[in-house]
């Protein structure tokens, strides 16, 4: 529903501003240009997106994500000490985090939901406990190692090396996940439910 308000807002504001500025003459050609550029964009990112989705399935089958999950688990154990006491929750959390790192969106969401359900079962409350909030924050702060869609957009617009943004993306992601975890740790003091 929020997108309906946003979209309507966008077109209403555009018309009003163009009436005020007298830029109405170019408006209709700009709209059509936008519509056709969407097809160009969609089709040019389709190839890389399909290739990466294919590789994602191979990664799932090959056990790379479960290897990564094992590597990650000492760190995750520190972040989720209570859930790691339960082996089922521990496996789901580490599988969710490693699927996110590898960009396996199709696998990460069901694993994350299963982890959330298991953690809720363990806490037997209707609100989100501290470790659940932390898992949500880690899922909303992107920790994907290779942002393929963005790279595909860059390549479709003629970037010579579409992946040269990777080091910057990694540093940025690290800071935002770190900030999210810190914010969760500070904010939990003001929500003394747990």
């Amino acid at each position, binding site marked *: 529903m929020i*997108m309906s308000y*946003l*979209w309507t807002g966008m*077109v209403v*504001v*555009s018309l009003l501003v163009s009436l005020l*500025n007298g830029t109405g003459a170019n*408006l209709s*050609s700009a*709209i059509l*240009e*936008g519509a056709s550029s969407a097809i160009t*964009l*969609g089709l040019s990112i*389709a190839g890389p997106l*399909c*290739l990466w*989705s*294919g590789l994602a*399935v*191979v990664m799932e*089958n090959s056990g790379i994500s479960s290897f990564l999950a094992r590597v990650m688990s000492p760190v995750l154990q520190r972040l989720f000490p209570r859930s790691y006491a339960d082996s089922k929750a521990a496996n789901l959390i580490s599988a969710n985090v490693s699927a996110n790192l590898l960009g396996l969106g*199709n696998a990460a969401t069901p694993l*994350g*939901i299963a982890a*959330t359900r298991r*953690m*809720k079962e363990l806490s037997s409350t*209707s*609100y*989100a406990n501290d470790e*659940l*909030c932390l898992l*949500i924050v880690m899922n*909303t*702060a*992107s920790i994907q190692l*290779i*942002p393929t869609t963005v790279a595909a957009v*860059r390549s479709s*617009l003629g970037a010579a090396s579409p*992946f*040269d*943004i*990777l080091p*910057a993306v990694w*540093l*940025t992601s690290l800071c*935002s*996940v*770190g*900030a*999210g975890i810190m*914010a*969760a740790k500070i*904010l*939990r003091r*003001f*929500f003394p*439910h747990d």
Partner: protein
Amino acid sequence: MIDLLIPGIMVLVSCISLWKKQDVYSALIKGGENGLRIVFTIIPSLIMLLSAVHMLRSSGAIDEFAGFLYPVFDFLGIPPETAPLMIIRPISGSAALAVGADLMQTYGVNSQIGRTAAIMLGSTETTFYTIAVYFGAAKIEKSRYAIPAALIADFTGFFMASVTTKLFF
């Protein structure tokens, strides 16, 4: 180094999978079909959103909005042109893709603004959508501080995207 990352992953992943006697090629095709389905679902929203974004840009509304926010963004060192992207990013993934692609096209993929937009897109997620999916599926009523903490992470990502653009390029 970074140029060899993608070919390296392709080689490594398929070799490990083949060594484990997996049918690599069928897995690739199966995944490719999933990818095509994703493309089909995002193209209609890209069409609607890019039409509206081009309309906004052509009317001059985006420039006026950026000009209005200029003092605050200039203080933080974030390009004010990326403001629409920051607003839409936590709400809709395909809208953010449309706005980000428009920024990259308008100002150039390798421009300061184009790179900042790309890094913002690559290092943040559709926060509200993710929270809704997770809490909805697990039937959790009170999200407590999950939303503010997630938004702090997003904002840090937006801020750091402009810092790292200056740092690396």
